[in-house]
């Protein structure tokens, strides 16, 4: 109880100190300082792959994400960190409209992928999700064989017509996910029979088999042991050569290891976005510093 009260006091102090911090930040756009709580650091880039402006997300009456502005550059790895319930997963799921599956969820604001508004009412989410793939917190291989798990995406999108082409896509996807050598002799056995780390890499292989442009990862390692985690992190580094990756993580070490930029969320607000090195060594915002030094979260 006492500790929580202290946290609250800290937050209040920091929130009152925050507008001046934003004003002093020359890299941040000037209109940010007008808001009660804006974003400090570098949320914007010149050649944005994904451009998000004023994103609000509501679950029924409750607002989960408040007016977030953020750009994601091509082939960059951006990690999103923050305490539990800070809206980072919800925000991530906006990028390929996965929140559509939740009845009471409502998204406001604009999200553009290569200049195309993905929340336009006439937009078909199917091709969007083919371009923006997603890897989930818990490995969720389909109850099918390893081969069929990877072949699923190319099949439903009609990416390949011949069986030999499909074989090739499956092999190259599994290779890129670093799983080929472990499973090449048992492609027909069920995907659910693999270990947790292998399942997660299978899910990544399944995602890249569709050749998306962006991969969203929602705490991809939270259910895995350290060795499996290390493998996935290596994989993310390799994948960033070809894909734009946004990753939500609870592990600050992981964010520091894999990402180019880091975004810190707090209570539904995007508090700070900066180069990962800067966030973890010299953050602009007091809240970020409090979080990464372990004072709360």
């Amino acid at each position, binding site marked *: 109880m006492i500790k929580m009260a202290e946290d609250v006091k800290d937050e209040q102090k920091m929130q009152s100190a925050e507008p001046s911090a934003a004003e002093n930040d020359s890299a941040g756009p000037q209109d940010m300082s007008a808001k009660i709580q804006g974003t400090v650091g570098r949320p914007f880039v010149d050649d944005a792959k994904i451009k998000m402006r004023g994103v609000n997300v509501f679950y029924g009456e409750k607002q989960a994400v408040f007016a977030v502005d953020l750009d994601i550059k091509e082939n960059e790895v951006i990690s999103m960190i923050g305490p539990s319930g800070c809206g980072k997963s919800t925000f991530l799921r906006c990028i*390929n409209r*996965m929140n559509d*599956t939740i*009845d009471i969820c409502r998204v406001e604001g604009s999200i553009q992928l290569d200049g195309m508004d993905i929340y336009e009412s006439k937009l078909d*989410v*199917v*091709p*969007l*999700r*083919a*371009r923006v*793939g*997603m*890897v*989930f917190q*818990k490995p*969720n*291989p*389909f*109850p*099918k064989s390893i081969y069929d798990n990877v072949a*699923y*995406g190319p099949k*439903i*999108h009609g990416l390949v017509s011949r069986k030999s082409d499909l074989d090739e896509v499956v092999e190259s996807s599994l290779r890129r996910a670093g799983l080929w050598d472990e499973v090449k002799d048992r492609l027909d056995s069920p995907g*659910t029979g693999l270990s947790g780390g292998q399942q997660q890499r299978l*899910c990544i292989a*399944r*995602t890249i088999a*569709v050749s998306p442009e962006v991969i969203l990862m929602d705490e991809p390692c939270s259910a895995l042991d350290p060795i499996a985690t290390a493998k996935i992190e290596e994989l993310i580094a390799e994948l960033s050569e070809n894909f734009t990756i946004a990753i939500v993580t609870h592990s600050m070490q992981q964010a520091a290891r894999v990402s180019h930029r880091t975004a810190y969320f707090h209570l539904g607000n995007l508090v700070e976005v900066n180069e990962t090195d800067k966030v973890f060594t010299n953050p602009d915002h007091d809240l970020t510093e409090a979080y990464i030094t372990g004072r709360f979260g």
Partner: protein
Amino acid sequence: MVALAFFAGRSRSLAIATNVGGIPYLNSLPFYYGALTAVWCAIPSLVVLLIWNFADNYFISNMIVAELPESALELVEGKKDLLVNQVYNVAEGIMPREMAPDYIVAASERLEVILWWNRMLLAVVCLSIGILGSLFVWMKITPKFKARLHVEGVFLGVLFVSACIAILTTVGIVFSVLFESIKFFTKVPITEFLFGLEWSPQMAIREGQQGSSGSFGAVPLFVGTLLIAAIAMIVAVPTGLMSAIYLSEYADRRIRDWVKPALEVLAGVPTVVYGFFAALTVAPFIRDMGIGLGLDGFMTISSESALAAGLVMGVMIIPFVSSLSDDVINAVPQSLRDGALGLGSTRSEVIKQVVLPAALPGIMGGILLAGPRAIGETMIVVMAAGLAANLTMNPLDSVTTVTVQIVTLLVGDQEFNSPKTLAAFALGLVLFIVTLGLNYLALHIVKKYREQYD
């Protein structure tokens, strides 16, 4: 008295608690001491009451028989029961006193006295056992007395007995059906029953009557049952499954809130009402349509048809299939759906390629559970399918089923030992074995499926 025992035990434990320094120093909460006292008050006397009720008839009869004069007792053993019955009838006023012989009247007066004493004695014994039981516990209440463990033990025992009641009843049913069936198979060979193609369960009431030799080949009944059940499943499975998919995957909450209870109402309609509907509306409609299509040139068209019964039975089973399928479809983890959607699947692709394959074992289990309902269903087929044991696969003809024949064989005045009546038990046994097998298979599949995700 039980309540009294409860409060006595509780207040004593409270009193003791104040002596030793409060409730925390007792082994158990005062409630448990009270409950244990109450249990000791109630259960022994209940047990005595039960045993007494079972035993007293036997003893009283013996006492009466001992009282009866020698002349009456010289009769054979079978008549002795008859005499005792007469005594009871006179005592209860069913039989007028004037009509009975003197020694019966005397015995009946004696019986009344015995019964009165019996009741009084029972009451006294039960009350005193109750009081003794509660006193026994009441004396034993000390801070160290583990009343809680004893009460938990009693609770466990009650649960165990409840579980046994259902199982023992099932076992009892199986044996009663089994013994009657064995009697039947001594009269009619089992091979004829299982493989004979003709069913006409007529037995001569007197010697030399026309058509006295009945034939008990049950194949037409099995075929009729399977035909109707198959039609029912053809109706119920696709409809139920698709409605389950709609409800669990597509329908928004308002529609779901409205449709699901409506479907459950369908499950609550008494089968007799379905029977009316089948016999009075559907069957004539099907007959007229068959004739209208000119089918009567090729096949028999009857006003009672397997199709009518099967269709209506199918409608009856829809809620069963749909609610079971709905459950298993909902049990497919949302993460699988998310995974498929995240790859850019459409909703129908998710359902066809991910949800249904994952739910398939459970859906199969649901279908297999619905099967026995179709096979065992009685009222609809009695009213709509007819009684003629035709060996046919023509759904427009009238057929009969195992259940219908059981009903017709046992309705009315029957001699209990004739093969005709006993045949009903043999049919029942077959029905029981088939449905039990299907249920077992279904539960096995459902269980296997559950293990996959939990």
